[in-house]
Every structure is written in C-alpha cells, then in structure tokens.
C-alpha cells in the first residue's frame, strides 16, 4: 500500500474527531470482512485474523494483530505505527487500556471487538462507531479521488468480465479471469459476486461450477479497490441474444437507476434516492420486488469498505453531503426474467452528483 500521506491525513482527521468528542483512546477493530475502521486508524488493510488499533488524540497508534503472517506485512505496509503480535488480542488490548490509567475510551465498531476486550476492559468502553462513521462517510477530496480511480478500474474490469462470460464457461472461471486481470493492473482487492441463469436466480453469490448457458442473465457486482478505496459497478449481460422480455425488463432498471441518480444532491436523504428508485418499480406494478423479500438495499456507501454507510433504503434518513460516495443500484428480482443488476458509483458534489462509472447502461448481449 502506498497510502502514507493519505493514511496520515486520515489519522489526523480521526484524532481531531476524538478531541472534539473528548475520547482519549480509540480502539479501531478490523478483519478482512470489515476492515475500514482499522484501516482508517492504522493504514493497514488486514487480510488474515483480526486486528485492533489503539489510537490516542496525538495520533499515536499501536496495532495488535493475531495472525503471525500478517506481522511482516503490517510492518512493511504501514509507517509510523507500532505493530504487535498478540494471540490473546482481546485480553492484550484490555491490558493496554488498563495501563493507560483512567481515560475515556471508545471502540469502533463496538459490536465486533473481541468479547474478551469487553469482559476485561478497565472500565466502560463507549461506542465510537458513529464518530468514526462520520469520518468514513465524509471523504476528503483525496479520498474521493481514489474512489473515482477505482470506478475507472471497475469500468475496465467489466470489459474483461464481458469477454470472459462466454457460453460454456463456468462461473468461477469467469471470476478467475477478472480477478487475474485486476492483479495485472496492481489492484490488490476486489469484492465480487456473480449469478447466472433465469427465474431460478434470486441473488448473487460467490462463483459456482455452473456453466453459462445461452439465454442466461449473467449478473455481477464488481468492486475493485484503489489504495483501499472501493468503487462498484453492477451490470447484467445475456449469453447469446437477449430476448424482448429481458430487454423490456431491463428498461425498468435503467429508468430506476436514472431516477435514483437524479435524486442525489446535497441536502437530500438516502431515503430520497431509494424512494426514487423504488417508485419506478411501483409504477410498473413491481412494488413487491423492492421489499426485503427480494432485495437488500438500493445502494450503499463506498470507501474503505465495499458495503459501507449510508445504506440506500427508504428508512435511512442520513443526509447526503458533498464528499460522500456510494453506489446507486436498483438490483432486484424480476418474476419474468430473473434477478437483474444495474448500478453506478457516484459522489455528492456541491451542486448535485458526479457519476464515476461510465459503462453504458444497456443490457449487454452476445451481439454487443
């Protein structure tokens, strides 16, 4: 990782937030599933085991890791922090906090820290999640630029994905080619799910042995990272020639995406974006298919985590502000043709919205 400057900027911002909230010591937890809090505090993109960064208001950071193989990587990929191997990480961080005397402590995300930390802590550990979430959501121009670059990579990677998604190929072979291409571009990580088939497919999953067959919808969300920042593209392609039913169905998703993006502006709420997307489906008597029975979210934040806040849902009232980055994706099941995906990465600007991904919003097929 070459994030020294950016990492320092993040740690300074976080330390300022701690000062503003009178938090003297922050424990930022992370693992490879949810590594953004840890990355924000320590600059370390954890892969194995779990880790906790103990950060103080002066920006001093001590990183505890419970995977021995991660120690070398952490010392090589970070600067200005102390790295410690700890088999009993919860107890060791609790002892660290105890040694600091009577201080006001917080942890983020509190629910994920090892149980032993809570059980052995020298006092109450407050929930620092909302404080760190604000730092994560409200990005600096340098952070937004990394998401923009990741979106460009997502566009390029989708071209590779389309080329790989040929009849007879197995899903995991298609993903292997895409992943390898990303590695060839120096992209360290990618969040990626796939599905193929028709009305039997209700969601995306890791790749299976299933072969792509003529007429299949091939759906994916492809989410490469640049210096730890993720951007996502969602698209659907059809193996062979798309049917009229598939094309008609996809037109609804295109209209919904455009409506969602049109709702992105400073001062709007996450719920406004979700409602704009969902209203399009309701207009076509598909309101049932924008419920949790068929779809999870209508978009989500992007940054140091591929699925961060704000979640774009009709009951999420988070205000959109310049510097926030997220994907708008009206992905859901269509009873006539199966699950379809379409989504673009965006940022909120001072005047509205910048769309990062540029791949055409079309239903790709064998003729495309």
């Amino acid at each position, binding site marked *: 990782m070459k994030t020294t400057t950016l990492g320092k900027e993040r740690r300074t911002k976080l330390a300022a937030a701690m000062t503003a909230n009178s938090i003297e010591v922050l424990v930022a937890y992370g693992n490879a599933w949810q590594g953004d809090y840890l990355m924000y505090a320590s600059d370390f993109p954890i892969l194995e085991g779990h880790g906790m960064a103990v950060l103080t208001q002066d920006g001093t950071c001590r990183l505890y890791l419970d995977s021995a193989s991660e120690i070398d990587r952490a010392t090589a990929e970070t600067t200005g922090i102390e790295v410690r191997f700890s088999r009993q990480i919860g107890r060791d961080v609790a002892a660290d906090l105890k040694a600091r005397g009577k201080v006001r402590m917080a942890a983020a995300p509190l629910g994920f820290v090892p*149980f032993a930390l809570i059980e052995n802590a020298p006092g109450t550990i407050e929930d620092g999640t909302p404080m760190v979430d604000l730092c994560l959501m409200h990005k600096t121009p340098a952070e937004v630029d990394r998401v923009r670059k990741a979106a460009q990579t997502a566009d390029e990677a989708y071209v590779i994905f389309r080329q790989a998604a040929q009849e007879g190929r197995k899903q995991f072979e298609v993903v292997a080619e895409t992943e390898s291409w990303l590695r060839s571009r120096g992209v360290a990580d990618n969040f990626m799910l796939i599905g193929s088939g028709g009305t039997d497919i209700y969601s995306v999953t890791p790749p299976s042995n299933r072969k792509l067959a003529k007429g299949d919808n091939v759906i994916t969300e492809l989410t490469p990272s640049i210096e730890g920042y993720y951007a996502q593209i969602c698209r659907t392609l059809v193996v062979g020639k798309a049917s009229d039913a598939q094309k008609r169905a996809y037109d609804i998703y295109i209209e919904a995406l455009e409506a969602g993006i049109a709702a992105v502006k400073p001062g709007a709420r996450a719920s406004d974006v979700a409602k704009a997307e969902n209203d399009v489906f309701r207009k076509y008597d598909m309101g049932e298919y924008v419920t949790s029975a068929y779809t999870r979210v209508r978009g989500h934040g992007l940054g140091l985590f591929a699925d961060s806040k704000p979640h774009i849902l009709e009951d999420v009232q988070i205000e959109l502000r310049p510097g926030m980055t997220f994907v708008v994706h009206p992905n859901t099941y269509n009873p006539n043709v199966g699950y379809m995906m379409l989504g673009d990465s965006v940022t909120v600007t001072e005047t509205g919205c910048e769309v990062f991904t540029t791949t055409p919003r079309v239903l790709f097929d064998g003729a495309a």
Partner: protein
Amino acid sequence: MRRGLIEWSKTELPESVFDARIAAMRTAMAASNIDTLVAYTNFTRPSAVSWLCSFIPYWSECALVVPKSGPLSMVSAVSPRGKPWIQSTTYSDNLLFSPKIGPETARVLKEALPSGATVGVVELDQIPAAVGLALKTVGAKLVDATDAFVTARAGGDAAGSALARIAAGFAHDALAAFDPSATDATAVVAAVDLEARRLGAEESYVAIAVNVRKDRRLVRLEGPATLADEFAVRATIAYKGTWVRMVRTVVRNDTQGLVAKATEQFAAAVAELPKLEKFAAMDSYLIETARTAQPLDAVAGSAITQAQTIPAGGLVTVQAVTVVDGTPILLGAPAGVSGAGKPGAFLVAPTF
C-alpha cells in the same frame, strides 16, 4: 470476501466425514461437561464451522449450534435469499436467519437448554462482543470450548488430508505458472492468482518480496513494481476450507544452486518436525496449522514466544528464511509432521 469457488463436494467430503467429526466433537464436549457447543464463523475465522459442517460464509457471519444430540442449527446473518446457496454448501438442515445472530442464537439456546446447562463457545475470547453479550443472556454457564474443539480436531482425518494435498498442488501449480524471468511484479502476481482460481481455489492471497536482498518481507502488491534478480512469491491457497501456503524464491542466474541448497536444508528441517532444532538454526521460521477458527494459526516460530504443541502426524504449513552464501532464500510449504514411524515430509515439494 471469498471470491473463489465455494462448493460442498460430497465426493471429497461425504456426510459420513461430518458425522464422524460431530461425533468426535460430542465426545470432547462430554469430557468437558459441555451441553451445547456454539461455533462462530465469518469468512476471516471460518475453520471451526467449516470443519463441522462444510459451511464457509463468503460474507457476513453465522453461528453454528451443536447440541449434545440431534440436528445442528445454523443462525445466519446472510439474507434469507441466500438460503439455497447455504443449503447447497452446508451439512445442516436447520437454517435460521436474523441480521443479529447473537440474540437469535441466544433464543435458540434458551428454548433448548434446561436451567444450569453449560454452553461451550469455541474461541469465546475472540467472538464479536455483540454475540458474546447476547449469549450471556441465555442464563447458562458460558465456558470457553476451544480446548475441546482442538481435542476433537487434533487427530485429523483422511478427508482433511486429501484436501490439504489438493490445496498444496494448487499452490505449487500456481507458483509454477509465472515466468521467472519476468520483471513486472504484477504479471507474476496475476499469473499465480489466475492459475490458483482457475484450478478451483476457494481463495488465493498472493504476497511478494520484489527484492529479497533489500527486504524479505512478503507484501500484498498495490500498483506496479519491478522485480529484482532475487525475489520471492507466496501463494496462500484455500480449498474447501483447507488452507496452505507455499513460497517460491527466484534467483536469476542461480549458477551456484542457492535455491536448491536452501530447499535441501528446508526439507531436512521438515523431516524432523515436530523437532525444531534445524528451523531454529535458520534466520527465521513460522509454523502454522489449523486448530480452531483461524484457518492458519501460528503454533511455533522464531517470533512466537508461546509455542503450541505441534501435533505428531498432523499437517502444518511451514515458512522459513535461510541465507545461503549471502542470499536470503524464502521457502514455504505444507507438510506432514513425523509420527507413527514416518518422517515429516512435504505434501507437495516446493521445487520448480
């Protein structure tokens, strides 16, 4: 997240394998006076649950409940839409869904357990606080079941060994797939990653030391980098829940056979496992094995102060650095530990 092929092959892992493992677990539970076992899983700590029922979450988190007898239950934070996928990869029919697995698992336990029962949690210290705090509300005696789990798993089984050999083969083939004369580090990493995933790896982490003379630490590559004449690549490969590492060092113009000499030293040290004298004589070493929920858990090493027991006849992954004629050579391979009269040996030799 997991981006490779996740599937439950009933040929490689028939239901009888899980029946035997669950029986071993129940024996260990009984010996520890544990009425019900809870094992937590997310994709960074999947090994306890995958050993018991094959399931590996590609995302999110789950808890597996193993009662003294009767069917296992899985509480999943994955959307219920993921049920067909979970069913296709899991030896457990009783699937429950909740975005908050702690309270739901606690509910399951409360319904099933008599008062005064003991709930054992694998790696109790390590589970998320939200889950641990929810389990405390059950009213049962909450104990750490890590030792019981390690005991149940310690003997290994033929199915697990077979998967490790396949994973070792994948790692070897992946490291053999790059061009050793390459100067572009991304091309090397991409070739390794492609081969591993194309073969069917569940996950592939490739780390690289682009110039071992300057820095022998293996890092995840971000952006372009130029390879020196001596570089090393590590492939960490998962296959159906079994993880191995293999390391290959390239020395261009290796007229003195430095890599071969180092590999001989490495093989000699492996042959003597669990004895560590020959590894201790090297610059550094690390021995990992699958014991609990972490796929590869450090058991001994030059930087490990509290070594764990290396199981005789068990499987480990070994990494070492030895300096031959002034050149650091990084080596790594999965190996069987000596036992029952057989010397330790590589599962697949790290020769290229």
